[in-house]
């Protein structure tokens, strides 16, 4: 068994390509657990960051600096009474959150966390992602209808109109990025997620900087459309609390409501992953062409350890700044333990980065590389997740006609122009 594990760690194939069902299953479980954990920490981060944007403290009571708040929330939601309104269509009401959740989690099979760190490398990767994530809107629409109530129905109508409109601009922006993958000797592009990152590797440029400013404009169109696709502020018309109470999930409570939230945050992570894969070089570290050589490789391989050290340092500063009163003792100890845990992870990463440099060491050097790939991918996605919070704190909600005007009359013409211009420039330069 250990031999099996090490043989896999040295592999350059995804489990799907190798036809190894066991490892594929392990990957699926790891990704599912990882995404659920990311959603929980995102929940905490969003509440904290929003609070600080508004000069509040946010959750402070449940654990040190509210660190246990997501767990407390999860327990509360699980124990809450599960209400189905009397006039609701029971079966559809029951199945709606599951549609959204399934659509949000299925796309993770093709997200490339590294050149071999994906469940499978599908030939139609990006098409599959766009298609399956567009099924998520069915969950929203059907939930709004099944609740048999006015606010959810209006929310569902708004949401379906919004998602269908922005999908068009989004798809055209994606096509212009895919067009860039075909600028090689054979002239054949690819739809595979891993293939798209490899194309950026071969051309030596992230597609956001390709044909400046064409790649950048396409990226910006996608970045706006993806906020609308995930129903987040400032495009959260479907759940505008000042107008529609909570929009399509007004009638949902407890576990079912939390499934909607899980699906929303999972969808946010997956669209961010599309943006990172298509325009920001996926798993590649920054300046992989400009700053190369073993010295730079070593410096960049220390980044994961340094990040965790920084987080540990933040935790320890929190311990020192904790009020010196006896009733804060438990919180103080808890935060210190958390800090030590982060420090231990940093130490492990440091050992792997130093010891795993040469081939034939106790830890294969591919482990070191894999950590690098996953780290850079997740870091880029994390930037997008923070942007989602930042948008929500900064911009007021759009009015619905403004939203439609932006989608159809601004973003769509821009992305069409960029697509045509990319094609022309690509032909002229090749």
């Amino acid at each position, binding site marked *: 068994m250990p031999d099996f594990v090490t043989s896999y760690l040295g592999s350059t194939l995804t489990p799907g390509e190798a036809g190894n069902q066991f490892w594929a299953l392990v990957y699926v479980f790891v990704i599912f657990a990882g995404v659920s954990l990311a959603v929980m920490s995102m929940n905490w981060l969003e509440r904290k960051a929003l609070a600080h944007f508004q000069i509040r403290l946010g959750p402070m009571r449940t654990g040190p600096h509210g660190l246990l708040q997501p767990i407390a929330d999860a327990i509360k939601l699980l124990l809450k009474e599960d209400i189905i309104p009397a006039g609701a269509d029971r079966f559809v009401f029951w199945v709606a959150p599951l549609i959204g959740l399934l659509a949000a989690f299925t796309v993770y099979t093709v997200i490339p966390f590294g050149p071999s760190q994906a469940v499978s490398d599908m030939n139609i990767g990006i098409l*599959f992602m766009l*298609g399956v994530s567009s099924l998520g*809107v069915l969950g929203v629409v059907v939930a709004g*209808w099944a609740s048999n109530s006015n606010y959810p129905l209006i929310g569902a109508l708004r949401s379906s109109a919004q998602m269908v409109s922005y999908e068009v601009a989004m798809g055209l922006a994606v096509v212009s990025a895919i067009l860039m993958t075909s600028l090689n000797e054979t002239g054949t592009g690819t739809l595979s997620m891993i293939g798209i990152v490899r194309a950026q590797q071969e051309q030596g440029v992230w597609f956001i900087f390709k044909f400046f400013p064409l790649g950048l404009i396409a990226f910006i169109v996608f970045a706006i459309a993806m906020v609308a696709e995930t129903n987040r502020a400032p495009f959260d018309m479907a759940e505008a609390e000042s107008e529609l109470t909570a929009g399509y999930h007004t009638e949902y409570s407890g576990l079912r409501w939390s499934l909607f939230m899980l699906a929303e945050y999972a969808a946010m992570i997956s669209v961010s992953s599309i943006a990172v894969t298509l325009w920001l070089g996926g798993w590649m570290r920054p300046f992989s062409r400009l700053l190369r050589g073993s010295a730079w490789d070593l410096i960049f391989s220390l980044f994961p350890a340094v990040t965790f050290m920084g987080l540990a340092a933040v935790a320890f500063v929190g311990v020192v700044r904790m009020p010196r009163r006896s009733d804060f003792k438990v919180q103080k100890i808890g935060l210190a333990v958390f800090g030590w845990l982060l420090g231990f992870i940093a130490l492990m990463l440091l050992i792997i980065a130093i010891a795993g440099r040469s081939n034939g060491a106790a830890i294969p050097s591919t482990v070191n590389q894999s950590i690098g790939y996953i780290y850079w991918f997740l870091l880029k996605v994390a930037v997008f997740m923070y942007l989602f919070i930042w948008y929500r704190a900064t911009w007021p909600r759009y009015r619905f006609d403004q939203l439609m005007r932006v989608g159809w009359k601004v973003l769509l013409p821009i992305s069409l122009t960029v697509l045509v211009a990319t094609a022309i420039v690509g032909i002229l330069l090749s």
Partner: protein
Amino acid sequence: MNSAINATNATMAPVATPYFFYGLATLAIVSAFLVITRRNVVHSALALIVTLLSVAGLYLMLYAPFVAGVQIIVYAGGVMVLFLFVIMLVNIDRSYKEKRFSGLWPIGLAAASALFTLFLFAFIKGRALFPDRMMLLPESSNTQQIAGLLYGDAGKMGQYTFAFEIASLLLLVAILAAVVMTKKRA
């Protein structure tokens, strides 16, 4: 080092077994039947989505992932959302009272059985034309092959380029017509 992986790779059997076909085909037929028998239109629409998705699964099983992906995006993702958008605004209580099947069902039955007979006839008479086993095309080049057929390969015109362009022109006309129809008259 890679021995364990290569071992599994060598013995890898095609995933698309006949059971997949039977499962997906049954799902498609049952849900298609539900589409016309359910009284509630939203239930019918949901059943139609299941039908479309299981047909997409059949395409995947035939090693045509591109067609499957397009099926999901266009039909399950796009068309059905618009369907639901319209259906949700319909008063369902009224549609319960309406008469469900118009008197045309004998004609429909005749047409359906004629089509079935035709398929059966083609299957029995033309058995020699069907390959006796499934061709194992490489899944990895499906999209590229379709592109070659539609747009041509290495400077040559593709087999279906002309038909494809005509169809795209028709769609463009339809889009323009839709825009003109919704335009407010001053």
